[in-house]
């Protein structure tokens, strides 16, 4: 599904590679978690995969289903099946939540030369998906993320994910700002989307999210590269001993 090979990324304003020779392979249906201390390049990685402006690829490659996506615009990468659930979903006054979601879905369908949904068809679909995430019509009618609580914003991200049915879901610190109940609810939404044809890349600081969304692999990222890979136990090890222990081992 996703193969990242020797990736090097720098942020335009900073004259230094934030990602330095990053390698990762995610097969269909797999759930990978990336953990790491602040400043290790986790969010930079997610933005680079999605093609955000200002993130310059200075080396290596990102392949999705065997094809490089580096020359694609963010919207084309989305159409190919990449979805990023934002750490801080943006509030955009004046843009209706519902109409934004319909535009997004139909833009992707149009690009894939599929039949677009009319308003009635879309409404039926969104109501069905929203009910699983406790997103009500009142929330859908409001401007995009405006005045939403932290939990509502994250549920709204997962609702978009459910509607767009991507092949690769990147969750960038989705647990940040969530209380225990909200995290459980969001995790249930994510777990409901797990399928043999859909892969997940979960970026998180803490092990607690991984109690709810069980990963197949856990990677520890430090200074722009993966220093250790393991199973769910590795996350428990981090929780218990911190990153310093792993970094020290790596140096030795």
């Amino acid at each position, binding site marked *: 599904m996703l193969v990242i090979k020797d990736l090097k990324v720098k942020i335009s304003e900073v004259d230094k590679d934030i990602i330095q020779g990053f390698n990762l392979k995610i097969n269909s249906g797999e759930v990978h978690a990336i953990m790491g201390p602040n400043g290790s390049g986790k969010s930079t990685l997610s933005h680079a995969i999605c093609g955000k402006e200002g993130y310059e690829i200075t080396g290596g490659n990102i392949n999705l289903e065997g094809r490089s996506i580096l020359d694609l615009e963010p919207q084309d990468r*989305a159409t190919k099946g990449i979805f990023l659930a934002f750490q801080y979903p943006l509030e*955009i*006054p004046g843009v209706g939540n519902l109409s934004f979601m319909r535009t997004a879905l139909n833009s992707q369908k149009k690009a894939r030369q599929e039949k677009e949904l009319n308003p009635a068809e879309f409404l039926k679909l969104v109501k069905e998906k929203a009910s699983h995430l406790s997103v009500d019509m009142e929330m859908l009618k409001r*401007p995009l993320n405006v005045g939403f609580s932290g939990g509502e914003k994250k549920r709204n991200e997962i609702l978009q994910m459910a509607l767009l049915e991507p092949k690769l879901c990147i969750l960038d610190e989705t647990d940040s700002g969530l209380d225990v109940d909200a995290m459980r609810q969001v995790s249930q939404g994510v777990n409901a989307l797990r399928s043999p044809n859909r892969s997940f890349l979960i970026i998180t600081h803490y092990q607690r999210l991984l109690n709810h969304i069980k990963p197949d692999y856990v990677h520890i990222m430090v200074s722009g590269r993966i220093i250790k890979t393991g199973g769910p136990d590795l996350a428990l090890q981090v929780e218990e001993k911190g990153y310093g222990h792993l970094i020290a081992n790596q140096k030795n």
Partner: protein
Amino acid sequence: MKNQEKHSINKLDNSRKRSKWALNYQKQCQEDLKKVGMPSRNAEYWKFASPNLWENTGLIPVSGKNFPKNDTQYLENKPEYYVEFVDGIIDPVTLQNLKKKLKECEISNFEESVCDQFHWANKLLGKAETKARKSYERPFALLNGGGSSQGIFLNCKESPRKPIHIFYSGEIEEKVNIRHLLKINCNAELHIIEHFSGNANYNVVTEGFLDSTSILNHNRLVSRFLRNSIITHFFINCMESSVVKTIGITLNNGAVRNETFLNLEGSQCDVTLAGLGVGRNQSSICDNSVFVAHLENSCKSRQIIKNVLTQGAKAVFQGKIYVDPKAQKTDGYQMSNGLILDEKSNFLVKPELEIYADDVICSHGSTSGSLNMEHLFYLKSRGISTNEARKILVEAFLEEVIEEISDLEFSKFVRKEIQDTLI
């Protein structure tokens, strides 16, 4: 309108004699204009946009083909109440129809009003304009007063069920002076929607007199089909507890200047002025000059201005809130925002507060900037194309003004017009 009909109106105009009160007013305007003179570029309220832009009768080049001859042709349904000015002349058929349907208001055209010695307008014509001139001189309004022969005088006694639409269209490229006079009686509510298109250079003056507890809702759409310049004057006098909401939508590519003067003579008035403009080339100049005079206590005023500018377009906002020593408990607010999409465009703002009372809340703010790149990325990351995402964000920026439009049918129409303008 058929040529024959147009000719017959002109003939009628010439054959009737104006009343003394109207002639006096006309003469006064002409004399005052001689004293005041036309504005120069150095005048304080003209320094951002040259007055020559509104004196020039030459055509401003506008791209596009197949303009409709008038606005009613591109509205899906003709409104129930409407009157039409074609080439600056009122269409008598539409006026007759309106008179027949609209029992709540007494309506007459300009010429028949000013020829009636005892017309209700004789005590009002020019009065709001005179008050507006105390803030600063209005030479183009004087020009209008000295030369207009067209317009509607409307005395609103009860509230019409629906808005009254006024369409301006036509093909001639002349200067057109139009004069409206509105009187809204106690407890009545009037909603006027103006649509400007056609080839003329318009100079329109609207004077409005609101009795206590009356309401005036006013929308002005300068459509993308207007090919020349326009200057409007909206001089409104408000008595106790009256409410005004005036919203201007400017979508054309020519020079547009809207001079608004809201005179709050009674206490507890509530006035809102909102304006949006979409400027798409260097011929596009949208100038909103607003003066809100708080003369009595406990009045509230809000000004919201939004301009989207690209390809060297220019927008000007000069907004002043004046608070008289008597106007305690005033609540004044003013906000202007410019969304500048390239380096060639300009958003020029001059917010002013002049406050002589000590127990007031008055605030003003202004921002200008480009599209938020984080917002753009968010939309694109969901599969929305760059162009579509930019359009969504521009429309979102303007939404705050559109939300102020109370007539749902018209706000839907405006949204569609903005979308078509942004293509």
